[in-house]
């Protein structure tokens, strides 16, 4: 008997010690660093500390279309080199395009040339008519599949890089399904800024301004075939009023942001405000050198996500691979711009389809109220048990304390996230935890009424209640686990605390309370039990 009792007491003591070691760093910052860093922690959910939750839809179709349009540009350049006159151009379904050529062998020559030049395209001859023939080029399915998978994986990577540089503690950025990305940024205060940083495609392009085209004509719809209208946004620092200036630029990008090596913010140049300095990698530097040499005295538009940031006149050939983006930036905007340029562009545009932002003040208010409600609830339940079951009730309360301790440290051990519904789950778990003791105590009372000795009544009470306790806990556990599996958001947080609470409760109800009674009975059998 003694052996079994000391065994159980040792087990409880060890568990308690381990729980305290795990739990303390979650509760207070006043612990040695070595301890703090080695132990997992309970995370606070966004609803408890404020922050941003974003669900993004990756527009993969756009990525596919963009790639195919890039192929089309390159293909046109190849045709031009080989003196094959392209009459017109059309998109052709998913990731494809077609060129029309005048009569003659132009089309078949183009087909052969494109086939050789672009192994990742399927190039075929279209209809041959009296006035000409078409060539249709499509990305091969493997290429499209690669873009598809890449878009999400690389999107997650890019966003993670940006967030890391933005400086958020414990961000969570994960892919969800085939085309979703979920971003959680706990504790972020400037929420709109964070959302913009995450959502920026950051496709940086250098495009020549089309000096020959008239802006007025272009706005009426007469845009030259190889050009487009983009807007330069500028904000007046005094009035805060934003103005948009239209500009006609060539469609073809001379250089894109993927050749950027570094980007950093500088202050106080000729323009006075903040600006972003770029340096290119070797390839980018070479292209930039050639582009600037060929286009001296022309204007080069610096375009980010189809918005012109600046369009300076190229004064002289720029070798050395350095460039600057000036514009009417605030220091924050310039630093965000530098971040997105450094972290690279998203392979496909993303759209925010779910945005939940909680301000820090509401978070603080919620946690205060939630914790207070949990404490009051627990105290009332403890008082009720002590009042209703007297000494036995106190034993149950003692088990309840262990229950809460184990539950919290269990949550810390798996780095679970505590949410407001999670607190509700704890309250409910407390409510249900006493149920096992109620079941046992009612059985003991029945046995005492049947005139059994105290010791026999206690043993019989635990025995008879055992399977009921197990059954009721397992059924609750089943629902909680399924909730965890299928639930999202608050449901998941609730399921975590409830399922852990139920599992731990099985142990505390059946072991922690029994050992107290066994201990009291071990020396000499109890004559009476206050229950």
């Amino acid at each position, binding site marked *: 008997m003694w052996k079994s009792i000391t065994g159980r007491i040792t087990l409880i003591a060890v568990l308690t010690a381990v729980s305290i070691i795990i739990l303390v760093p979650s509760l207070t910052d006043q612990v040695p660093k070595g301890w703090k860093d080695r132990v997992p922690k309970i995370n606070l959910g966004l609803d408890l500390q404020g922050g941003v939750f974003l669900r993004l839809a990756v527009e993969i179709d756009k990525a596919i279309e963009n790639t195919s349009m890039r192929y089309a540009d390159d293909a046109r350049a190849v045709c031009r080199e080989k003196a094959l006159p392209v009459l017109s151009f059309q998109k052709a379904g998913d990731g494809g395009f077609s060129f029309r050529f005048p009569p003659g062998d132009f089309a078949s020559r183009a087909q052969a040339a494109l086939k050789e030049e672009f192994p990742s395209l399927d190039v075929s001859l279209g209809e041959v008519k009296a006035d000409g023939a078409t060539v249709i080029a499509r990305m091969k399915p493997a290429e499209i599949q690669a873009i598809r998978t890449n878009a999400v994986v690389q999107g997650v990577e890019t966003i993670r890089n940006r967030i890391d540089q933005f400086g958020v503690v414990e961000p969570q950025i994960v892919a969800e399904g085939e085309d979703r990305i979920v971003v959680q940024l706990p504790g972020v205060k400037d929420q709109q800024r964070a959302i913009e940083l995450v959502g920026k495609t950051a496709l940086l392009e250098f495009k020549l301004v089309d000096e020959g085209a008239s802006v007025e004509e272009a706005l009426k719809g007469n845009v030259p075939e190889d050009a487009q209208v983009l807007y330069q946004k500028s904000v007046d620092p005094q009035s805060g009023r934003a103005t948009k200036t239209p500009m006609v630029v060539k469609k073809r990008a001379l250089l894109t942001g993927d050749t950027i090596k570094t980007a950093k913010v500088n202050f106080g140049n000729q323009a006075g405000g903040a600006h972003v300095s770029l340096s290119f990698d070797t390839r980018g530097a070479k292209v930039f050198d050639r582009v600037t040499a060929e286009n001296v005295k022309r204007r080069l538009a610096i375009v980010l996500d189809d918005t012109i940031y600046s369009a300076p006149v190229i004064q002289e050939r720029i070798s050395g691979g350095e460039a600057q983006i000036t514009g009417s930036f605030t220091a924050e905007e310039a630093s965000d711009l530098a971040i997105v340029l450094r972290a690279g562009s998203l392979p496909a545009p993303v759209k925010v389809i779910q945005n939940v932002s909680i301000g820090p003040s*509401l978070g603080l208010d*919620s946690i205060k109220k939630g914790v207070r409600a949990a404490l009051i*609830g627990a105290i*009332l339940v403890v008082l009720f*048990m002590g009042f209703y079951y007297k000494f036995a009730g106190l034993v149950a309360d003692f088990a309840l304390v262990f229950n809460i301790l184990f539950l919290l440290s269990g949550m810390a051990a798996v780095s679970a996230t505590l949410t407001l*519904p999670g607190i509700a789950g704890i309250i409910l778990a407390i409510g249900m935890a006493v149920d096992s003791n109620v079941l046992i105590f*009612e059985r003991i009372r029945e046995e005492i009424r049947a005139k059994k000795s105290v010791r026999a009544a206690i043993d019989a009470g635990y025995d008879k209640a055992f399977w009921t306790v197990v059954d009721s806990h397992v*059924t609750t556990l089943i629902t909680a686990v*399924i909730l965890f599996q299928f639930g999202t958001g608050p449901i998941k947080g609730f399921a975590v605390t409830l399922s852990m609470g139920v599992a731990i409760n099985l142990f505390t109800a059946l072991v922690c309370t029994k050992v107290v009674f066994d201990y009291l009975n071990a020396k000499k059998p109890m004559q009476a039990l206050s229950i």
Partner: protein
Amino acid sequence: MIELVKNTKIDFMGLRKYAFAFSAILVILGFVGTVQIYRGKANLGIDLAGGTSIQLKFQKPFSMDEIRSLLAKAGHGEASLQEVSGENILMLKMRALGGKEEKMVAEPMMNLLRQSLPGNPFVVESVSEIGPAIGHKLRRDAELAMLVSALAIICYLAWRFEFKFGVAAAVATFHDIFALVGIFWILGIEKDLLFITALLTIGGYSLTDTVVVFDRIRENIRLRKKGSFSETINLSVNEVLSRTIVTSTTVFIATVTLLAFGGIVLRNFALALSIGIVIGTYSSIFVASPIVAVWRGEKMTEVKR
């Protein structure tokens, strides 16, 4: 010994006609409420229906009429406004307008207010924008969770007791869920993701209650062998009645505390839990066991252990 109930001999089975009638009303109510939810006529929270909800805390008191007309002018006339009196808090809700277009409107709306009311700055306490497709997905997930848990529970109880007990427990559980939906529908309270959490919790709680009664029935069948099944149910329910009441009381204490002190975010959730505990307790006594009695007949065949 303090005892809330002592040696009761209530004829629960005799009351079952009234109980069934009462339950029928609850379930019909819940059924109508469910249909209304699917028709989009019930007050669904934006996390289930999709839409935008914004909570702003202004520095000074504001005029609801002024804000309403400002929004209407900007084309957001369908937004519903609510203020928390005394705290200068404005809650703004906009349901997603049909279709799949997932448009984010929170930022332009807040900019509008920021610019139109320069003398009364506000802090953004929370913004949540949910596209309709996501709303549907969250709802589908929740429904799936309910169905799978029902099946899992029937399986577990069929294994531990017998199939009829499992089904009866599942019926009682769904009875509670329907009843809560019905009551919330009648009261016109918003039904959001937390409400679904509450439904599932109550399902779990009611099940625990039912299992305890079933356990005692099984035990008594083995011990008694004589008499009718209905008598055994009455005896069993009476025997566990004090446990039922004590447990319901403690859980009720916890949920009512949450209702009183949990703050506005948890109010509806705690209300659903509190009502649900009453219904769950009722159903394990008056719904689950009588179903088994009606289905199984009065013969005292043993239940496997």
